[in-house]
């Protein structure tokens, strides 16, 4: 018997507002425990919630980005349960009448085809605090309420995801979308994006869904994929052996790469949802929604298209750059700088970010070079240093300047990598580094010619080999010239001169 996999995701995204959902406390991450608190988020007796307008705007922006219907009326409900990180003993969420319903996200599936994944709903809710447990299991636990009341958007997908890889791509698409719409930074390290998975197997050809298992506790997209892969294997094995699955909640153990049972659905909480009487129904008028729609920045799909047409990038590079709005923004800012080789007249075409680049620059392939540098050197350095691009020592204009130095032949590609490393560690500009280290490429034909002559004289045997037909000897000689000039010689000039001088010898 073969089975089809049916996957649905629940994604909690932390919205990047300055203040919390229902009070004026800061949402800043990493502050001293319990310093961003007040009677409201501490749930002190008598305190009342008031919705932050910023949360509403971001919630609507998210709904629009996810192609949802933003509802004119939605209602906040209380989800009741006891836990020490939940000071009111209920979480304010949305239940029967969520803000956004019925959207979709388009992904490219494993066969390279577009696939639409439905979004059931995307609703607003508040986060709970954080428990910090002592290393000693019998030791005390501490509560930090700084996170308590931080705004979340819960996105629930339709059970339309068919493979772990699709789940991965769907998550990447959601993350990209939320970052673009300015809803969330989606930093996994800070817990700004958390995923729960529902997965069941259905006999091929049948319509009825199988028994659903919920998996929690994955802290990366790769983890989600691994958990799903494990779970599908496990469920297939159970079903093939003729046993039955019970609906349950399972935890993913990252180290073991396996899921373990946490609780059965019979033990599930009864959350006793009911409309929160402290908050009036949320009424949105059309002008407000339209205002948010107008303020939405360019979304990834449109940006990818523009990068290929305007900058002449490949679809692959455009997609990689656009996977983060910050990276895309960095690229555009760097590409907007005027290349040193370009005629001054092209300046009139404008250089500001978002403005089409000078046609001459596109023709010169400068944007393509910038894209290559971002996707290789910059990404490598940022990953090694674990910094985001907007906190990186090298700014867009600094990268542009480095590219221009290469283009003008002032430094070689190899030297550029050294210069770049120093830019990363010191934050200095490419110009000042090449100046101070005397790294400028030697382009003086006489100086290089002298070095070539010296090398030819020092390596008579190799020259003989070359003349005898051993063409690889040429490379050795180039290397010797570079060594003699401490790597500063323009490689092209070295090649030309060496070729000419060897040719001249043959003729002798």
């Amino acid at each position, binding site marked *: 018997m073969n089975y089809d996999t049916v996957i649905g995701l629940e994604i909690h995204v932390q919205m990047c507002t300055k203040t919390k959902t229902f009070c004026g406390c800061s949402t800043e991450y990493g502050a001293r425990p319990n310093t961003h608190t007040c009677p409201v988020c501490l*749930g002190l*007796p*008598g305190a009342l919630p008031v919705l932050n307008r910023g949360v509403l705007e971001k919630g609507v922006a998210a709904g629009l980005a996810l192609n949802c219907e933003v509802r004119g009326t939605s209602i906040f409900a209380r989800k009741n349960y006891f836990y*020490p990180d939940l000071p009111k*003993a209920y979480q304010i969420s949305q239940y029967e009448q969520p803000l956004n319903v019925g959207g979709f996200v388009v992904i490219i599936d494993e066969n390279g085809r577009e696939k639409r994944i439905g979004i059931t709903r995307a609703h607003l809710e508040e986060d709970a605090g954080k428990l910090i447990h002592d290393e000693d299991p*019998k030791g005390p636990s501490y509560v930090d309420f700084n996170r308590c009341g931080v705004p979340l958007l819960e996105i629930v997908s339709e059970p339309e995801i068919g493979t772990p890889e699709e789940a991965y791509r769907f998550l990447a698409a959601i993350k990209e979308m939320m970052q673009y719409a300015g809803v969330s930074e989606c930093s996994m390290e800070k817990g700004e994006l958390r995923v729960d998975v529902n997965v069941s197997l259905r006999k091929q050809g049948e319509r009825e869904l199988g028994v659903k298992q919920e998996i929690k506790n994955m802290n990366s997209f790769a983890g989600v994929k691994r958990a799903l892969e494990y779970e599908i294997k496990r469920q297939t094995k159970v079903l093939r052996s003729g046993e039955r699955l019970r609906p349950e909640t399972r935890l993913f153990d990252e180290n073991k790469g396996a899921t373990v049972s946490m609780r059965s659905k019979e033990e599930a909480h*009864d959350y*006793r949802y009911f409309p929160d009487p402290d908050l*009036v129904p949320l009424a949105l008028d059309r002008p407000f929604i339209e205002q948010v729609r107008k303020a939405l920045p360019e979304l990834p799909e449109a940006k990818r298209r523009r990068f290929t047409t305007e900058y002449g990038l490949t679809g692959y590079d455009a997609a990689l750059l656009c996977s983060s709005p910050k990276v895309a923004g960095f690229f555009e800012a760097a590409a907007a700088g005027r290349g040193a080789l370009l005629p001054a007249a092209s300046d009139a075409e404008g250089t500001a970010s978002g403005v089409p680049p000078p046609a001459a620059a596109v023709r010169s392939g400068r944007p393509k070079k910038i894209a290559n540098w971002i996707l290789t050197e910059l990404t490598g350095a940022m990953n090694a240093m674990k910094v985001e691009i907007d906190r990186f020592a090298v700014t867009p204009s600094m990268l542009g300047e480095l590219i221009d130095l290469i283009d003008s032949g002032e430094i070689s590609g190899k030297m550029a990598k050294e210069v770049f490393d120093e830019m990363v560690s010191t934050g200095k500009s490419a110009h000042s580094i090449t100046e101070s280290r005397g790294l400028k490429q030697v382009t003086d034909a006489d100086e290089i010619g002298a070095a070539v002559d010296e090398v030819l004289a020092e390596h008579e045997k190799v020259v003989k080999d070359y003349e005898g037909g051993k063409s690889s000897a040429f490379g050795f000689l180039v290397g010797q010239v570079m060594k003699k000039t401490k790597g500063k010689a323009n490689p092209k000039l070295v090649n030309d001169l060496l070729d000419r001088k060897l040719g001249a010898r043959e003729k002798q």
Partner: protein
Amino acid sequence: MGLNEQSIETLRELLKSGEITTTDIVRDIDAAIESDKRDDLPLNAYIRFDRAEIDRRVDKSEREKIKGLPSRDLLRGIPIGVKDLINVLGSPTTCGSEILKEYVSPYDATAIINLERSGGIPAGKLNMDEFAMGSSTESSAFGPVRNPHDRRKIPGGSSGGSAAAVAGGLAVAALGSDTGGSIRQPASMCGVFGMKPTYGRVSRYGLVAYASSFDQIGPVTRTVMDGAILLEAIAGFDPADSTSAKVETPRFSELVNGGAKGLRVGVPDEYFGEGLSDEVRALVERGISLLAKAGAVTKKISLKYTRYAIATYYIIATAEASSNLARFDGIRYGTRFVKTDDLLTLYKENRRKGFGSEVKRRILLGTFTLSSGYYDAYYLKAQKARTLIRGDFEEAFKEVDLIATPVSPVPAWEIGTLVDDPLSMYLADIYTVPVNLAGLPAASVPCGATAAALPVGLQLIANHFKEGDIFRAARAVEALQ
């Protein structure tokens, strides 16, 4: 007569002329409380009356006075007792419960901020039914409150401390809260004026919630004028309360003398049926006749869904309460009764020892009606009934300005008699809960006393934000007493 027994109106003049100071009034109140403590059957109206705390507030008020805020003239330094579920910074807010016995509030309720801005001084925390759940002020962890008219009788509840203090000369005026009649019923039984304002008129920020969609803070006073002054002082839109109404606060203290002439008063049949004591009926009818004498026009009306009000109220209010009171677990604040490593034991023991039986009964009831499988049959159905009851009033107010009814079907009863009969106690709320279901303003104004000298109040209900009409009519009844 001590200053403690004067009205706000009188004291305001004395303070204005400089004849007396706030401290003189506080001293007289303190003396009255101390003397009452020596009584064989003390009223037990206060949970806390701390002179040092009050003096600090008086000092603060004196400093504010220099700034010359015109709104200060409303209360001019008059001390006002506060029901002990309204937060006053630096003071315990016990809600009459073991679980909050040690809890000191780190902030002022908006009503307290408004009170001080109007020149009032929060002075003392008044006894109440635990978490405002009760109609007799017997469920307080600080002991029952007695009725000043007959100390063996209950003062009504849950704002029994507020009503008893004002009636017994232990406070000039007081703030109470009304969820299903908790201001009006004790005001009626103690023979003072008490008003539940329109839902949204007074900010609930800082009022410890019993049932959020019903709770309102309101005045308990000796005279109707005092009630108008005090409501004017505490009312107003508050951005910190999403359910607060964005409406101007009328000058109630001026409207109050408008007279009852021309007011159309509806008398609903359903409020004079079975269960209403003959004596109360006669006194309430007398009150209505006084209104007519003052020039009001009375007519019979019908509020046909009244009989569903008790069930509707006790389903929705307890549902909200079960959620509102879930935060009291002794973990972050409040009394912790056990030392244990087990989380569930901690929750269970703190709540088992921290709450009294009436509070537990209502939490259980509310938890049940919200449970999956019962929600539709109880909570949702009750919400539909609430809409119908509200519709009843909407219809009625197309024809009348006010509705006149009894407050309680019976006068104050003997302490202890209904403690073990919660259902009878709930049924005694029949005339007050429909008002809270509809979010309307209503007041109890004294309209006489029974043969046993127990006071009885007349309930006057108005349309949303029409408290002015209530004050006018109540003032007229008061004048003709």
